[in-house]
């Protein structure tokens, strides 16, 4: 479904703090599977994740999404496509403070210009799915860790994307919540979504729901395409 061909990403090129985060990666991500990018911090898995999710452009190489090359698409199309196809869950959740839970969930859909009533209903439905219906108007600062996690997941789903991308989702969670998270990912897989997770947490990559583990170190794949 997603193909990365010879991807290289260099930060601060030409400056003294030049950093090659990803170096010559060839990777194919299968649809309707949970793929985990495993590696220590600094291995480039976060960068690779952002490249897969069209958040950044590679310095070299090509990215092909569902048969279509997207490497050199202009920002407008890239962003619209990213909104449509990908849902992101960040390590820090990155919810906007001072804004209600409901509005946080609706935010990714605002640029679409769709009907407000329909959007609101959809968002409320998602919140209900995660048992957060009662907290719709609450400020995000007032939520517990588990509730915030669920809001972050709900937000990632609002545009009904085909791919869920999560960056170190369990870094700030206890074991119970981590297992709960993986349970959600499994249900998404069952619903036909593709899930890509970057993590060095054993609770994640040793989970039975995971279909494939990709090892990374120093910006390169260690054992390319090795099955779990």
């Amino acid at each position, binding site marked *: 479904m997603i193909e990365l061909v010879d991807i290289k990403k260099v930060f601060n090129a030409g400056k003294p703090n030049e950093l090659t985060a990803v170096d010559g990666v060839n990777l194919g991500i299968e649809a309707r599977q949970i793929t985990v990018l495993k590696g220590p911090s600094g291995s480039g898995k*976060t*960068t690779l*994740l*952002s490249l897969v999710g069209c*958040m*950044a452009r590679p310095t070299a190489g090509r990215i092909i999404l569902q048969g279509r090359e997207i490497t050199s698409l202009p*920002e*407008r199309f890239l*962003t*619209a496509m*990213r*909104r449509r196809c990908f849902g*992101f869950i*960040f*390590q*820090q959740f*990155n919810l*906007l*403070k*001072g*804004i*209600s839970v409901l*509005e946080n969930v*609706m*935010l*990714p859909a*605002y*640029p*679409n*210009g*769709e*009907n*407000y009533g329909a959007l609101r209903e959809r968002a409320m439905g998602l919140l209900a799915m995660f048992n957060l219906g009662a907290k719709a108007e609450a400020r995000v600062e007032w939520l517990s860790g588990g509730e915030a996690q669920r809001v972050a997941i709900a*937000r990632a789903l609002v*545009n009904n994307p085909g791919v869920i991308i999560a*960056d170190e989702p369990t870094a700030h969670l206890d074991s119970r919540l981590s297992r709960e998270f993986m349970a959600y990912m499994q249900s998404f897989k069952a619903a036909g979504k593709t899930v890509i997770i970057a993590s060095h947490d054993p609770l994640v990559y040793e989970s039975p729901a995971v279909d494939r583990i990709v090892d990374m170190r120093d910006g390169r794949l260690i054992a390319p395409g090795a099955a779990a």
Partner: protein
Amino acid sequence: MRRWIEKQRCLLDFTLSSLLRRKGKNIALAVVYTLIVFTLASVMMFTQALKKEASLILRETPEILVQKLAAGRHDLIPLSYASRIGQIRGVAEVKGRLWGYYFDPVMGANYTVMVSEDPSLDEGEILVGKGISRLRQVYKSNILSFRGCDGNYLAFKIKGTFEAESEIIASDLVLCSESDFRRLFGTPGGYATDLTVKVKNRKEIPTIAAKILQILPDTRPIRRDEILRTYDAVFDWRGGILLAVLAGAVLAFIIFAWDRAAGLSAEERREIGILKAIGWETADVLQMKFWEGLTISLSSFLLGILLAYGHVHFFSAGLFEPVLKGWSVLYPKFKLVPYVDPYQVATLFFFTVMPYTVATIVPSWRAATIDPDSVMRY
């Protein structure tokens, strides 16, 4: 198109939520902004109204006014000049005008004393303006004393006061008979303060004025259109104090808004990063910033204008009274023609709303172009 409207409404929703997060600060900002617009608009409307009044009222001012100059200063003009001017072709009538200022030491106020041609005003009788009436607490049939140039006091009986409607021209006026005037000020017979000239054909005014200057080189003829133009220039807000205040206010505001937006805190930058990460384009972020600038500036502008209009026309620009009064003791009550010039309102809009909105967007430009993956690379 529909999508675009829906999107703008969504962005506006978010902007309002965002502004409400710092309620106190944004309300204070809006209040200050409204106050600035209110002040500028009040001054603008007040001067416009005065200008309109002046142009309408002074239409019947004497066509040519002739003053005598002596060593560059205004001097009494001999009435013999009147007959000489009367001989110029095209002149219909020449009259002498007697007027002067009287300083009332009791109140510390200046009155304008004028002679009226009205024959019904007997010696010893005067008509006074409402301003004087209020100041000295004198009314019809009361006595008002003036100190003459010889040190003696002259008592006048008030025959009546000018109506309230005429305060704008007669508030400080004292109308008396010619003999009383001459006794009060010691103006010798055969002299007047200046001369007024009525002309048969309006188009001839400039030529006649030139001729007067020719035959009487020590005089200065002033034409009606010059008088009106002077008033126009005086109230024309393009020049003078309003522009200075406006420029100052706009500048201060731009600096303020720029400082607020340019020093985008780390928090705000991070938030823009999040928005970009969840799928907002640079353009979306900038549109949101545009709404942020517009909501405050447009609301404040509209409120400021509405309040200014109310202030000027329903409260007679009461807040300006101390400013306008200055050193003067006597102050007329203005009841002005409400005149709102849409051109000026538009200009005020451009000078206040646009700079503020721009000053909110431009500094955010850099932050808006953040790479979406920046939130992942803390």
